């Protein structure tokens, strides 16, 4: 055993377990290579090369870039703090969240829920708003995403009304609902109510830093 593999303290490849692991690694590597080739050939997806879909996003990216440019020039007339607020609100409105899909366990999810989730993730918010409303035995998750459909349709008063339903400590969407309510109130220029909610965000909560920035200004 004089080869380079045995000249240091690495696991001994002659050990059964290590050899088995190497065999597994070899086939995992081959599987990855086959999948990479298929992704590239059939879907034009490869590492360091985003899918063709990126081109479909071109108008949106251009739009966002243009808005950022406007913000940049606007900066000349404002102080940094105002720009920071604008950026936080801008990001909250333009970064669309996605539904993670149906939750594990329940095999009897209705078709309405599936359609609602699909339309939400496709950005068809009018349709998702309608289909979330048709779900029987609605959960707080359904309420939240229905409210977010209002939010992305810029119907902020309806969004606030719906988000308030899931804004309680028992709900797993409490922090998200609070944050998007604040943004909606901000857009509706109801700054006093928004600031009341901002002050409720604790240091360990989601978006604490952004909340502090908004509060300071």
């Amino acid at each position, binding site marked *: 055993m004089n080869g380079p593999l045995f000249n240091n303290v690495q696991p001994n490849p002659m050990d059964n377990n290590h050899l088995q692991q190497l*065999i597994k690694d070899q086939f995992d590597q081959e599987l*990855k290579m086959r999948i990479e080739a298929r992704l590239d050939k059939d879907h034009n997806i490869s590492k360091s090369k985003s899918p063709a879909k990126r081109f479909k996003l071109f108008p949106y990216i251009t739009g966002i870039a243009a808005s950022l440019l406007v913000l940049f020039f606007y900066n000349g007339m404002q102080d940094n703090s105002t720009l920071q607020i604008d950026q936080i609100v801008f990001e909250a409105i333009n970064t669309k969240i996605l539904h993670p899909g149906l939750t594990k366990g329940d095999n009897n999810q209705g078709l309405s829920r599936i359609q609602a989730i699909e339309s939400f993730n496709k950005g068809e918010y009018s349709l998702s708003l309608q289909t979330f409303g048709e779900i029987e035995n609605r959960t707080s998750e359904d309420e939240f995403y229905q409210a977010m459909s209002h939010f992305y349709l810029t119907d902020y008063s309806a969004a606030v009304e719906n988000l308030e339903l899931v804004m309680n400590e028992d709900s797993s969407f409490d922090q998200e609902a609070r944050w998007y309510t604040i943004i909606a109130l901000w857009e509706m220029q109801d700054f006093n109510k928004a600031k009341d909610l901002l002050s409720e965000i604790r240091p360990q909560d989601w978006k604490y830093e952004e909340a502090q920035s908004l509060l300071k200004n």
Partner: protein
Amino acid sequence: MNTNMISKISCDLELASWVIEFEKSHSRNVQMQIVEACQCSAIEAHKRASIVINAALEKIQIEKRKNQLYVTSVLQKLVKYEVDSINTNMSKNFGLSESDFNLIVSQLKVNETNFFERMFVSHFSDCCNYIQTNYKANYDDAYDATMDAIVDFRERMVQQKIRYGNLRYLFTKMASQIYFKKQKAFRNREIKESDLPFEELKQNDYELSVLKKSWSELGDACQDLLKNHFYGNLKLTEIAEMQDKSSATVRKQKERCMNRLRLLFTKNDKSAEI
């Protein structure tokens, strides 16, 4: 003559024979009851009995028809429920039915990965987008996490640790966890990077290149056996059954193959040194 017509004629015949049988078995009885109850003539009783029988037949047929309609509506409801349930399940499982899933598992065990690859390739970008959007991951990191999740998923499928139910959710969660683990490992490595020797980072790549060469010299029978056992997670007893050999024979064969692979590994490792 199509099957619907044949079926209708057969129904009509069945109904006609049932009517004749009904009349035969009940008309005499009804006639007797009428005679006993009203002391009328036999002719009158016969006439009245016919009226009773005809009315009874009509009523029974109406009830039968209602019953058929009820059965049809119950069946339609059950079919709709079943279809909804299948559609829901399939949408949560990459469009696979439970039998498709079981087929993929059995194919993976003998290292047939075509169906598996096609399924995950078509859902690759969804998972990538999810990680990018929800965790603000960059594209390459999301790509790597999704790819690693596919490899893990295959292993868990052959180990039968994954059950049909909500594969899409499970896959997305696995990819997310891999992404987080990698991010954490990356942050730790940034601190310790200066302590790691360059050789150590290259070690696994070197070992794999030696294994690759040794594997190619191993022979088809040993390659199949070791791959099915270690990668397809097939038990030696299952391989023995497939090859129509005894378990002891396959066990010995496996040992011989492993010894041979070790020898080849040593030889190729030495030759790499030279």
